[in-house]
């Protein structure tokens, strides 16, 4: 009994790889044998749903779509009890707790104590990286072979991840969303993001960073509607060592779901525009 089953799996696998190869030849000029070979190497088990992920014409995974985390990470990256402004949570950090340097831990405690006043998100500021990814609002990925634009509903701010073999600028600014350069490791998009400003937080509990923040992200499809997102954070001014977090991103599949622009920072002056007609009009 086991032998025919084995053959069946191998046969399916042969069909799958063959079709991948055929697709790469017909109609998709940018695709090549190397890409198909890479795909094969990354998916040794024929039954994994990773074989069924959307791909660009060049064979790379296509993350286009509207995504959102249900992790609750934005309440607090670290394990925490329920409190007035957060449900309980076990946290999303590998090793549970963030390795703050002593002075930085004091700053974090101050941030936490005054979070209702200091949290940049409450002011409508751009969320930064990685917070924008697990903040409880959707973002949309627009992907081409040479780049990905991440449009966050919150603030409608756009982050570019370049995937065209370019490197960080030699004379960078400090940016809200940093400078992101991506490369492919098999079917995983690995992004090196750096050159951040120090105006964003990691969550609404006051976990923070400095302007030497560097983030290395790994984006991997678990299946066509699910992404595993990992981020490794390095910031020698704030933390004693690099640390990592991981969340799952789900594709929005509700009928007619779309981003709705949320320029949160305009709320304070929305009332002044536009001019109003006279009441008698």
């Amino acid at each position, binding site marked *: 009994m086991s032998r025919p089953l084995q053959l069946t799996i191998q046969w399916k696998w042969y069909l799958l790889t063959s079709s991948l190869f055929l697709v790469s030849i017909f109609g998709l000029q940018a695709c090549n044998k190397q890409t198909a070979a890479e795909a094969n190497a990354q998916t040794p088990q024929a039954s994994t749903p990773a074989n069924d992920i959307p791909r660009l014409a060049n064979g790379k995974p296509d993350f286009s779509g509207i995504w959102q985390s249900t992790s609750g990470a934005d309440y607090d990256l670290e394990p925490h009890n329920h409190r007035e402004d957060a449900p309980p949570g076990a946290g999303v950090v590998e090793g549970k707790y963030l390795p703050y340097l002593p002075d930085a831990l004091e700053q974090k405690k101050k941030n936490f104590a005054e979070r209702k006043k200091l949290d940049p998100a409450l002011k409508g500021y751009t969320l930064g990286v990685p917070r924008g990814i697990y903040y409880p609002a959707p973002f949309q990925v627009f992907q081409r072979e040479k780049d990905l634009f991440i449009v966050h509903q919150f603030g409608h701010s*756009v982050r570019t991840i370049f995937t065209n073999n370019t*490197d960080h600028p030699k004379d960078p600014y400090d940016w809200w969303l940093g400078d992101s350069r991506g490369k492919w490791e098999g079917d995983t998009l690995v992004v090196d993001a750096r050159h951040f400003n120090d105006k964003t937080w990691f969550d609404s509990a006051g976990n923070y960073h400095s*302007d030497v923040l560097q983030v290395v992200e790994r984006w991997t499809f678990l299946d066509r509607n699910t992404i595993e997102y990992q981020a490794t954070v390095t910031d020698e001014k704030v933390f004693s060592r690099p640390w990592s977090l991981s969340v799952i991103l789900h594709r929005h599949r509700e009928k007619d779901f779309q981003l709705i622009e949320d320029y949160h920072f305009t709320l304070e002056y929305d009332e002044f525009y536009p001019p109003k007609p006279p009441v008698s009009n």
Partner: protein
Amino acid sequence: MKQVATHFFSVRKTALVVILTGLSAVSFAQGGIPIEKNFPEIKSGDWTGPRLADGQPDVQGHWSNTIANHNNFTDPQGGIPNDPNPRPADQGPREGRAPSRVSDPADGQVPLQPWALEKVKEFQVGFHNPVKPEYIEPLARCAPGGVPKSLYWHGYEISQYPGYVLFQFNSGTRIIHLDNKAPLPDNIKLWNGDSRGHWEGNTLVVSVRNHNGKALFGRSGEFISENGTIEERYIFNSERTRYNYVATITDPTVYTRPFTVTIPAKRYTEKDTPNGWHFEVEPATHAGSELILEHYERICAENNGAFGITAK
């Protein structure tokens, strides 16, 4: 040292935004925003240029208007109305400058109802002495430029995807849906409205609903209300060097009749020299020798949002 330097650079960039926002003369002199006074008509018709895999005409790239910034909606090269220190270049006979962006009616004026005309005139005075918060042009507070002003506020980038056309402006982002999604409910009001589009040959046809009416058309104060709608036609030439934006704006709350706005735009490529208004790109760092230009983050510094020219 590096951090100090980049901080300084960041601050300096913010200061530049203030200058560009507050003093049109500076940007005029430095950036050369008006590059033509007349522009060719482009007829709607077949698209004979390259297409994307999904069949859309490929119009991706960097674009910018060719006439003027948002100083003045109906006399685009005429400077800010009531400017106490007008530039000589903005003066002289009207025929010496580019035509009104209002291409219909023929007088080039927005057909405002009397109450709305009064508000516009009030703004044109208050702009120079903003003693009320509503006299601050909202773009100066980092608000999105809105429709149609975003099309004459710095250069912008168009990219295309199956089901979408994406506009990235310096202030604001527009997602044009080509995917036949149901429209948003009427009570949702947005700075850039909600856009549904489709291609007709060389023309991207977009219907804009759900305006919040808050983004003025410029420093001359013309506006639309949250009852307004805009039917846009982006008519591209197949050489992909230009397009004309021709839009019908309708709003029974503010205007006496629908009117038409025409805005010419030009595409910028690696052959063009980057500049601080139309084509704000930087050469990418990479191992090869080819020139790759990229645009840095477009985020107006929200925490500078209240600079508002001269008022808080």
